[in-house]
């Protein structure tokens, strides 16, 4: 018998995806696969040696732009700042025709209403962090209210944080139940579960947290809040992609991936795409299943595209800041 059986897990054979959790047997999370760190590093280093040039590069760069969750998560955010970012989401670099929009804008719950109004009709989604982001140190009722507020304001996606303290103390059922409860509160909004891998210390923990999140009903798993270093290293993302693959094999359910934090240049983003393609396959290479959480990546990608188009190296002076 599995040692840790979450409360929601015990009676979820009768549940379906709509209610929050999957109707598959939940494994014993204390015995999730161990990760071979040296092996991961070796595999990851190979993704970084691919040479992606000319037209393939340009196609990759366009794809990256379309996968970005343009993010502002600061205490000093104002409606004005959010409006400006939403404008950028729809007008990345108007001097060059044919550029896609970003996938979504990611803001705090208090800014969802503002953002929703700004991106209306553009296809750009509004994602909101919730559950007492970034620490997650609040009681479940508060987290549920936080989530419901964001959903009521019109958020299409919810980025929740897990309780890392509880996770590290081995209270996996607590973490599982919390995710399942938030998933239920999300309604139609897609749920991204932030593991905050920088606080999970080991790749074994990253794998375990990924499994918990997916079995508890996550639509996406996401590496980090962006507030803690290290964030989305390729090692961590690779471990999570493998977890998604195993989950897919086990249950037949697709889960999306969002590395966030630390991916600030095009080259690294391209390496991530290579990794996604080789681990999960082409089905994941669109913004329905793969996202980049970043604030400065967009401009670097735009500069690379303009370099490819004009032949001149670019300057940040000619690109909008937000």
């Amino acid at each position, binding site marked *: 018998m599995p040692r840790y059986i979450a409360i929601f897990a015990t009676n979820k054979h009768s549940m379906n995806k709509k209610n929050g959790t999957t109707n598959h047997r939940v494994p014993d999370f204390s015995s999730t696969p161990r990760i071979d760190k040296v092996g991961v590093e070796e595999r990851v280093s190979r993704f970084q040696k691919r040479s992606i040039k000319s037209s393939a590069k340009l196609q990759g760069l366009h794809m990256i732009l379309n996968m970005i969750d343009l993010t502002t998560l600061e205490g000093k955010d104002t409606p004005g700042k959010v409006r400006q970012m939403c404008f950028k989401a729809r007008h990345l670099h108007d001097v060059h025709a044919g550029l896609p929009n970003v996938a979504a804008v990611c803001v705090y719950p208090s800014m969802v209403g503002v953002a929703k109004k700004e991106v209306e009709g553009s296809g750009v989604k509004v994602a909101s962090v919730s559950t007492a982001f970034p620490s997650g140190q609040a009681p479940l009722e508060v987290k549920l209210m936080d989530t419901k507020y964001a959903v009521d304001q019109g958020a299409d996606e919810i980025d929740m944080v897990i309780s890392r303290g509880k996770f590290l103390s081995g209270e996996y059922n607590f973490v599982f139940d919390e995710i399942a409860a938030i998933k239920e509160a999300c309604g139609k909004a897609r749920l991204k579960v932030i593991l905050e891998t920088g606080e999970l210390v080991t790749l074994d923990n990253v794998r375990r947290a990924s499994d918990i999140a997916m079995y508890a009903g996550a639509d996406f798993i996401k590496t980090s809040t962006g507030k803690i270093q290290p964030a989305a290293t390729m090692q961590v993302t690779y471990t999570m992609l493998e977890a998604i693959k195993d989950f897919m094999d086990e249950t037949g359910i697709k889960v999306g991936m969002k590395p966030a934090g630390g991916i600030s240049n095009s080259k690294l983003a391209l390496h991530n795409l290579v990794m996604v393609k080789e681990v999960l396959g082409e089905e994941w290479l669109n913004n329905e299943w793969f996202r980049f959480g970043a604030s400065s990546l967009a401009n670097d990608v735009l500069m690379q595209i303009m370099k490819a188009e004009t*032949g*001149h*190296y*670019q*300057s*940040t*002076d*000619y690109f909008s800041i937000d």
Partner: protein
Amino acid sequence: MERLEVLKTYKIYIGGKFPRTESGRYYTPLNSNGKQIGNICLSSRKDVRNAVVAARKAFGGWSERAAFNRGQILYRIAEMLEGRKSQFVDELVFQGATKKNAEKEVLMAIDRLIYYAGWCDKYTQVLGSVNPVASSHFNFSVHEAMGVVGVVTDIETSLIGLVSLVAPVIAGGNTCVVLANEKMPLCAITFAEVLSTSDVPGGVINILTGAQKEMLTPLANHMDVNGIVYSGTDAAVVKELEESAALNMKRIRVYDKNWMDIEAQDLYQIADVQEVKTTWHPIENIGGATSSY
């Protein structure tokens, strides 16, 4: 047992570090006696890009540094150069200069650094102005650093020419990317070693060796370069610079000076790589007599 000589690997200087060119290529220039000067990095356009990125990153810190402190650092470069005089003399002789001229050139280079070190905290006072205006404003103009400046040397005096171009650029708070003289790169590399031991923050001066023809275009049409200073008389180079500069309105400054002449140093070479900022500051009255102050 006969000792095997340890030959030096000459490398480029980007962001305070000494990497090899990312292209992995090298070339072997000869001195006037037909002897190999060394295996020198043949930098690529990507090295130019990396150098500009490093220079841009260093610009904020360098331009906001206290002017007096910039002067101290320029003085420090001169101190370090003084300590390595004989190495520079040897290199100049090896590259084809006479011993006498080589010694004169090194001393001149040291003195030139001291000259511009002195100007660091004074040029704004001398160049700046308070302007008469017909409204109730206190109107004044000050010089500010341009940004990232390219330095292209195309002259036979490889040390003094380099120092004479770089010193006024950095004295004024700019950072720079230097394309070293293609035929005589030794002094530029050794000068980089001087810089790395003399308190100059990494990225303020970046030095690349290689074929000018290959590096000039990516530098001249780089949108993040604000100006280029060129010492030489090659009309084709000047044309290339002026044409590419039109992209982002770079300032192009061309010098045809005998750098060994003491008159070749002047304040206006600092002004050449500055932008003028004019401020209109509202006041109550213009005239002194009716002023409420």
